[in-house]
């Protein structure tokens, strides 16, 4: 286990920010911590890295209890904070060098690895510029460069793609994959379901301080995905249609709204051809038909009764 937490608890006044959180992150994976704003993701990370002291529970990183100041552990962790933590009045290269030095790099190795980090985040040709002049995406990438120059074994990223253009976002997601391929274990926090779905092998879903589900993506989907949704757009609606569709084998529920029919069906049991035949028999045409597989979004929806993003 690279990270293991046992019943972590943190309160801020009346707010129970983190409520008995148990996480286990193994070597070499990209682990996603998914949850809406205010779920307690940042607070959890702050306890992992010693910025916040837990009210109860334990943290172990690299198998060592992380209480107090352990340079050996810290040297091998890179943190990308949610809020930009770079100096506007130091150049991109100086920013990366500053943090790399704090992580103990020096001499030739310092220069090489700083250059690599800048290269890696696509900032090499702007390394002499001040972040003042950077776009939001470039600042985010610099924020990441400062966390990776010392080549940590564990990289913790707290919503590294918030509020940036799609191009920078893709660049960042590619970088995360590459860092992982080069051997780093990644804890990736986000409230974007798509990112976590795309990037991570295992996921924990967090809401109101609690981990409500944890496992591989498939395991999580299996939790809710006994059913699939079939959404059909029709040219015209006949009100006997609902009952006729319910009679089709595998269909558990059918609803109509305007000229769209939504079926809830047991997974992989419904014959789509049969459904279309029934519709055609009522004199209506199928304009579009969509079989929706479960997503992490629907997992979240099912487990919490609300959407991930409002």
């Amino acid at each position, binding site marked *: 286990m690279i990270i293991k937490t046992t019943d972590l608890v943190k309160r801020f006044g009346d707010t129970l920010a983190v409520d008995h959180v148990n996480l286990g992150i193994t070597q070499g994976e990209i682990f996603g911590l998914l949850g809406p704003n205010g779920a307690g993701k940042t607070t959890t990370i702050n306890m992992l890295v010693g910025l916040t002291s837990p009210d109860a529970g334990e943290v172990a990183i690299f198998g060592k209890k992380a209480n107090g100041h352990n340079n050996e552990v810290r040297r091998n962790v890179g943190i990308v904070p949610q809020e930009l933590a770079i100096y506007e009045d130091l150049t991109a290269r100086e920013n990366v060098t500053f943090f790399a030095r*704090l992580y103990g790099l020096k001499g030739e190795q310092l220069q090489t690895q700083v250059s690599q980090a800048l290269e890696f985040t696509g900032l090499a040709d702007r390394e002499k510029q001040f972040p003042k002049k950077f776009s939001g995406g470039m600042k985010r990438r610099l924020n990441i460069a400062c966390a990776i120059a010392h080549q940590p074994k564990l990289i913790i990223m707290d919503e590294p793609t918030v509020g940036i253009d799609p191009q920078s976002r893709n660049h960042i997601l590619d970088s995360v994959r590459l860092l992982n391929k080069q051997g780093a274990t990644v804890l990736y926090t986000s409230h974007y379901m798509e990112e976590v779905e795309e990037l991570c092998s295992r996921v924990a879903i967090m809401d109101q301080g609690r981990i409500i589900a944890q496992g591989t993506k498939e395991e999580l989907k299996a939790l809710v995905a006994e059913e699939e949704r079939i959404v059909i757009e029709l040219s015209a609606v006949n009100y006997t249609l609902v009952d006729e569709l319910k009679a089709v084998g595998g269909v558990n529920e059918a609803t109509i709204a305007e000229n769209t029919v939504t079926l809830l069906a047991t997974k992989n049991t419904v014959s789509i051809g049969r459904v279309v035949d029934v519709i055609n028999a009522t004199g209506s045409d199928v304009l579009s038909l969509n079989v929706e597989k479960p997503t992490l979004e629907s997992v979240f929806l099912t487990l919490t009764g609300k959407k991930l993003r409002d």
Partner: protein
Amino acid sequence: MRQIFTIFYYTLLRNLRDTGETVLQMVVFPIVLIFILGNALGGTFEQPQIGVSEIGYVRLDQGPVADYFEEFLAGDEIAKLLNVNQVDSRQQGLEMLEDREIVALVELGEDFSQRVMEGKTSPILVTTHPASPFRAMVIENILESFIQGGNTLQALTSMGVEQPEFVFAGGIIEDKSISTTGLTPRAIDYYGVTMMVMMVMYGALYATSGMSSSYLATIGQRIKTTPVRAAQQYIGLVLANVLTVFGQVVVIMAFSGLVFQVNWGDNLPLVLLIALLMVVLAIGLGTMMVMLVQDERRASSIISTITVISTFIAGGYFRVNIPGVAGLIQYLSPNYLAQTAIFNTVYSGPPQQTIIMIAAMLGAIIITFGIAMVAERRAIR
């Protein structure tokens, strides 16, 4: 050590880069103020403030220059400032000085006229009470104007005498905390010191902004996750800010000394040491404030207000004379401690007073940093 140096180096780099507005505020602004207050307002600011000072006068010389001197003291202008009490002997004058009946004792020695007319150095002995340094400055200003003033000078030269050199003799009085002062600060000398000290107080703003970004807020948090100990981070930041403000002090002192001839005295190392202590104190104050309120903007505005008040009660903008016990409030002003120590050093005041001021500053430094550390620990995390 390497970690402290890294924090120190990059903080200093950022402070130095942050030119433009900061240099304007921290260096150009005080220099301009020294110039304006020292010249434009210099001639007028004392008289309405000070009122009449009682002085004792011992005349042992019967010669003509002493007559001129008495005529000079009896002049209308002088009468507004000085009330001259004839005293028979030095001993009697010193007793009056001790009893605070007079604030200064002026003596003309037996051979005063003789020596002036021979073109030799002619001491006018001035003994002042350290409790009234500003009145002493006024008196010494007046005496200097006697020597250098047009009428006197003309009279003396018409008598075939070269302009006499003005030297105060250093008469030491046994076991009394009464001392003779050396030269007299002109307005520009005065403002050179007070404006420099005021700038140092504003230097506390380096601490409020530096500490909040690099210690408390996002970047500070990030630094805390690296293998750097909080103490190293703290020390590196404080050292860089101290050095930044101290560098500005040196620029102001050098510029005002070379261009405006502001008198920084003979004991430059001691003056620099006092300035350095003041810088550390100001940084301590800024650090304490930001740790207490945990908010850069509020800390900065509190610091600015404190600086204005502290400069005011120390007489930084214009000399203030707070009578009686209320005068003790001046000791709460860091400016006052530093100014008094510097004036005392430059104008050869009693050394023990300098030591008291330095000790008070050291105490204040320990208190501010102590409170800052306690406040930081208590901040919720």
